[in-house]
């Protein structure tokens, strides 16, 4: 792998080069990839001219994996090995899946019901992370082929209401697919960026995003390129799939009415009927009635007619279910209906007339539908990816997003102590002091939860760790400070520290039932061929890319702001750059990574000085030397 070329420190930086970055909308039903080409955000198509890639993965008898339309076409014939809507299972355990009976997959029962769920396919056990990684790989290849170069990175969108476990699972999937994740971006925020920039919109807007499997509502204030999320809410298990499902259940009831000897459907018939239900739903968007005709595997002929009126009645509760999060978001943002300048509809499911009517009735205004609801999220992600890698020269685009769910800790009696309330602007950190319960207590168990309920049992448990070695003291004398930090991806890390002794425990929250580092390594291995050599080559390649990136970043910083530090400090950093350059030519990944750490360490003071200087510049010359970060 070639290293990035860097001009000599002090000389002018390398000429502005367009870096290849993509935005990916990893959807429940369909996925897309987009990029910014000559200042225009564009969705990339496959060789057949399709923009949408059905989020369906089929494991073939010959060991190959087929993704997209070809997989979707075989769904009814090979349901157990053809997985659709894997996003619904991301970061989830078996006990989270409410209606397994209606899902035609072989879920694997594990002794531990809280463990990440797995599906049995002919290619062996597959997690939703691996299945999603196949979709991401397909999109990555499409982008590389179309753009003709190596990608710097990708912005991947997630439902705003995804919790920490679901976000982490998405990041793991990207890693398996070999993608450098620039940022996880909330889908409604991505949509707002695409809509807002396209229409030069200013004011307060609502994004109502009903996708295949998830529902989000976000309220944003748009002003001069700043997109500030005021509140977000949603339901990460509600979407267009549920509307299909209501039709499916209605058809089953119809069959039961007419035939007393009706037996439960097999996997193939279930998938077939679900597909017919989806087609009927889409047909009813512009027609008054839909005919559902199919023959089941036992020869039974199904021929029923569903009217639009009946469909509205069947799905009324689902539509109402979206309004409750909407009201909550409005209340959290402290806004009246009159404050809303526009309501943007996103997600294929918002094509349904009953959904549009409900939104119109609630907000008392006609929703905005002048963007393709299927593409707007991917386009927004591409715009953000382009900005993040520094391709936009006049950079005034800034996204200020929030955490969707409150984060807290378990205290005595199974109660939740909230540390970070929902709708806090990211990044955010909050600390809380706790004390011991018994005399001489030397350890403390810390359970991290996410959710709005008061009882730990009703929230999602994210992690569990122990702080040991607290000096024995009387009950209530120790001061244990627990700090939560949520980064710009919405991912949490927690550290705990006993104040008097300075004993520290730090965890980056990996959900209790998430993938372990070993599992990821194992999956990476099996997906890149089992040879140890491959793993080594990959590690070396990754280390060299990282080395190139940091040398580039630091050299550029020195060229711009080298005057902020003394000649001696500058010299130290330059020496470390040179050392890393030399090390990067060797085949020793460990040594390269060590040299990267050393260079990073050497630039800490410089980084702080640059940060202070840029903030001072922002506030016209105000001196902020007093910031001690």
């Amino acid at each position, binding site marked *: 792998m070639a290293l990035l070329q860097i001009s000599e420190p002090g000389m002018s930086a390398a000429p502005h080069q367009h870096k290849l970055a993509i935005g990916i909308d990893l959807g429940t039903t369909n996925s897309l990839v987009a990029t910014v080409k000559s200042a225009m955000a564009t969705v990339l198509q496959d060789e057949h001219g399709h923009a949408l890639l059905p989020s369906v993965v089929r494991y073939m008898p010959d060991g190959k994996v087929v993704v997209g339309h070809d997989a979707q076409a075989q769904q009814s014939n090979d349901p157990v090995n053809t997985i659709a809507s894997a996003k619904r299972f991301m970061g989830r355990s078996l006990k989270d899946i409410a209606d397994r009976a209606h899902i035609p997959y072989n879920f694997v029962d594990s002794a531990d019901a809280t463990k990440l769920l797995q599906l049995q396919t002919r290619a062996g056990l597959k997690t939703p992370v691996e299945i999603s990684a196949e979709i991401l790989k397909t999109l990555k290849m499409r982008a590389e082929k179309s753009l003709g170069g190596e990608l710097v990175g990708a912005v991947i969108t997630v439902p705003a209401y995804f919790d920490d476990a679901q976000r982490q699972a998405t990041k793991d999937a990207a890693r398996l697919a070999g993608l450098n994740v620039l*940022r996880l971006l909330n889908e409604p925020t991505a949509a707002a960026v695409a809509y807002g920039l396209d229409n030069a919109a200013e004011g307060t807007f609502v994004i109502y995003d009903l996708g295949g499997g998830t529902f989000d509502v976000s309220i944003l204030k748009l002003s001069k390129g700043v997109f500030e999320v005021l509140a977000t809410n949603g339901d990460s298990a509600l979407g267009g799939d549920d509307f299909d499902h209501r039709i499916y259940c209605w058809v089953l009831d119809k069959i039961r009415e007419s035939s007393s000897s009706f037996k439960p459907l097999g996997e193939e018939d279930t998938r077939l009927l679900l597909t017919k239900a989806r087609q009927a739903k889409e047909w009813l968007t512009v027609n008054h009635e839909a005919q559902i005709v199919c023959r089941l595997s036992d020869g039974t002929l199904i021929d029923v007619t569903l009217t639009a009126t009946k469909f509205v009645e069947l799905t009324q509760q689902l539509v109402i279910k979206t309004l409750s999060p909407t009201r909550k978001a409005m209340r959290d943002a402290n806004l009246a209906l009159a404050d809303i300048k526009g309501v943007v509809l996103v997600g294929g499911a918002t094509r349904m007339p009953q959904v549009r009517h409900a939104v119109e009735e609630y907000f008392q205004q006609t929703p905005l539908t002048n963007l393709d609801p299927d593409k707007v999220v991917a386009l927004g992600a591409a715009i953000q990816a382009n900005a993040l890698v520094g391709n936009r020269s006049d950079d005034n685009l*800034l996204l200020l997003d929030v955490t969707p769910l409150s984060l807290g800790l378990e205290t005595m009696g199974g109660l939740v102590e909230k540390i970070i309330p929902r709708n806090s602007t990211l990044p955010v950190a909050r600390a809380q002091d706790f004390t011991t319960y018994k005399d001489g207590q030397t350890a403390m168990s810390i359970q991290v939860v996410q959710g709005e309920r008061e009882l730990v049992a009703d929230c999602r448990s994210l992690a569990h760790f122990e702080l040991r070695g607290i000096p024995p003291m009387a009950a209530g004398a120790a001061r244990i400070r627990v700090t939560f930090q949520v980064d*710009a991806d919405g991912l949490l890390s927690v550290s705990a520290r006993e104040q008097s002794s300075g004993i520290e425990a730090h965890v980056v929250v990996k959900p209790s039932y998430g993938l372990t580092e070993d599992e990821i390594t194992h999956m990476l291995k099996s997906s890149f061929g089992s040879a140890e050599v491959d793993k080594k080559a990959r590690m070396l390649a990754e280390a060299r890319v990282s080395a190139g990136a940091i040398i580039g970043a630091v050299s550029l910083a020195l060229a711009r702001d080298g005057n902020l530090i003394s000649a001696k400090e500058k010299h130290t950093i330059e020496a470390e750059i040179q050392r890393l350059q030399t090390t990067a030519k060797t085949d020793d990944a460990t040594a390269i990574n060590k040299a990267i750490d050393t260079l990073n360490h050497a630039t800490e003071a410089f980084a702080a000085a640059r940060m202070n200087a840029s903030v001072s510049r922002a*506030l016209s010359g105000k001196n902020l030397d007093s910031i001690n970060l």
Partner: protein
Amino acid sequence: MSLNYYVLFDLDPIFNIELETLESNYRKIQSESHPDRFVTASAAEKLKSMQLATLANEAYLILKNPANRAKYLLELQGITAISETNTAMPTDFLMQQMEWREMLEDAITAKNIAALENLLSEIQIEAKSLQSSLVKLLDEEKDYVAATAATRKLIFIDKVCADIHRAIEQIEN
């Protein structure tokens, strides 16, 4: 306290700040410090960026909210408005609080959202009047004793409002 939030946002240390200036300076700082600006930077710069952006968010939250802002101004004067040992309140305010709490309980029992929203607007009127008196007490008269009392009332009012919001949400669920 390592950094004065007023210095960070380039504002005079008063209660009656221009909210527009606060917002625009907050956005300027985020434009420079937000982690989105440092995606391709070194790990050291990424960390500094996250720390400064986190600090700016926290500072903005404090200065934006009147009760928090008054409490913060008093802290700059070395006065702790609310502490575990000092919870005394004037009798008339306590009576009023009890009245509000009773109305809150009644509305919850009756699942009456309209009554809760009415209560909310009634309390907001009281909050507004406390805010006006804080402008006088903190910025003009510098009467920190009276300002402390008013600030504590405002903080209690915030708590009642939060409870009302929670009640509305629970009824809606």
